[in-house]
């Protein structure tokens, strides 16, 4: 069974145009799939449907065979969108504690990938600082750790390295590599011409690239050969 599967997914926001047309995609254990496309091509929509945030107009997204919109499926997912989903008025730790609480976890940094990411991304020194006092890059780092709470099987990440400095990029690449080595899967998006794929290859991540165009997916291949 695939960790994440899109089955004939269609999506339209208005009557006029389908953003996604019959998308079929499977993410198995250890797979890293990158969707490349220009702005407005439907990359984020695809990600949000996989995250169970958006309802497809037709078809379905399944996580371990469970509809992605249902709470049990969301336990297996970690979602990082372009805008960090953290509360500016709360500290980094309060944000993590709150989101961990929604997943039934008492101590957000007790163990697992979230704890490792917290350390790799150097968040310790700002642990009790309010997020509103921090730059976008630090909010993004906090958001990455938030998404890893509870050790998700699948990470869905929109433009993974955007807004991060070189040190944080290396830290994130290391976290993603560990996730794949442990049998997790990653679905990432990147804009056309972005440097994310080159960076992934340089970081020993082996992305399988798909191009999104006209609402459909086209397999491009793996830059590592």
């Amino acid at each position, binding site marked *: 069974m695939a960790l994440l599967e899109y089955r004939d997914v269609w999506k339209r926001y208005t009557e006029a145009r389908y953003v996604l047309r019959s998308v079929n995609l499977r993410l198995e254990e250890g797979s890293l799939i990158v969707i490349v496309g220009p702005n407005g091509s439907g990359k984020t929509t695809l990600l949000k449907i996989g995250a169970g945030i958006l309802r497809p107009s037709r078809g379905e997204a399944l996580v371990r065979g469970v509809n992605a919109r249902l709470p049990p499926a969301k*336990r297996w997912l970690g979602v990082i969108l372009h805008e960090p*989903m*953290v*509360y500016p*008025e709360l500290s980094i730790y309060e944000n993590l504690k709150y989101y961990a609480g929604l997943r039934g976890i008492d101590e957000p940094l007790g163990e697992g990938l979230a704890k490792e990411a917290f350390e790799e991304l150097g968040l310790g020194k700002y642990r009790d600082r309010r997020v509103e006092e921090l730059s976008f890059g630090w909010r993004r780092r906090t958001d990455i750790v938030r998404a890893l709470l509870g050790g998700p099987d699948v990470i869905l990440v929109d433009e993974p390295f955007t807004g991060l400095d070189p040190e944080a990029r290396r830290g994130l690449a290391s976290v993603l590599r560990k996730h794949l080595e442990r049998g997790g899967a990653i679905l990432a998006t990147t804009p056309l011409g972005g440097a994310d794929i080159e960076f992934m290859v340089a970081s020993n991540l082996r992305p399988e690239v798909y191009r999104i165009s006209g609402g459909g997916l086209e397999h491009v291949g793996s830059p590592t050969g």
Partner: protein
Amino acid sequence: MSVLLQVKRMIWKDLLLETRRVSEFGAALVFAVSAASLIGFAANRFAPSGLTGTLIAGLGLVLVEVFLAVFTAIMGFVREADKGTLEGIRSSPVEPVAVFAAKLVFTLIMLEALVVVATGAAMFFGGATLRGAYRLFPLLVSAGIYLASVSAFASALSVYIEARGILLPTLILVLSAPLIQNVIILVEGGFYGSGAWMLALSGLGFMVVASWLSRYILEV
């Protein structure tokens, strides 16, 4: 994990945020006190004989509550959407009805707290005329239950609509119209206490319907 525990965590988070966003709750508070003081002043001028003034003040305070319901709607789902955190909640393993219930309870707490302050202000500025205004509490608290449901529901309904700045107050006024109508009838009949239970009951009814609908509203 218990849904109730999730609801409790979401309410606690909202209350904590409110203590740190002083300007927003502060603005609602200033509005409540200003409006209530004017109501107190008017009641004192037009009906210094007590009972009539108190009843007029009761109607006025319910109308203030309707305005406050717009404030609390903005403090609810709308603000979560603006900050991008609504998607954080929706990507968490939480039932939509639990998300709605948490926002509803938070809205109820905010609204009732503001009503207590507003009534206090009306009593203070209304002088001798409104000394008995505390007897309006059952009416105001019952109206608060209904309006909290309306506020949370309107907030959820308009969260993905661009024109929500205009839609939100319109929606709240339209949904509150039956309540206002009932309050006018009750006030006309010299109402003080017992009929408030009917209002509370209708508020609870609306709460149940809104919670049931929330699973469809919060998904796009």
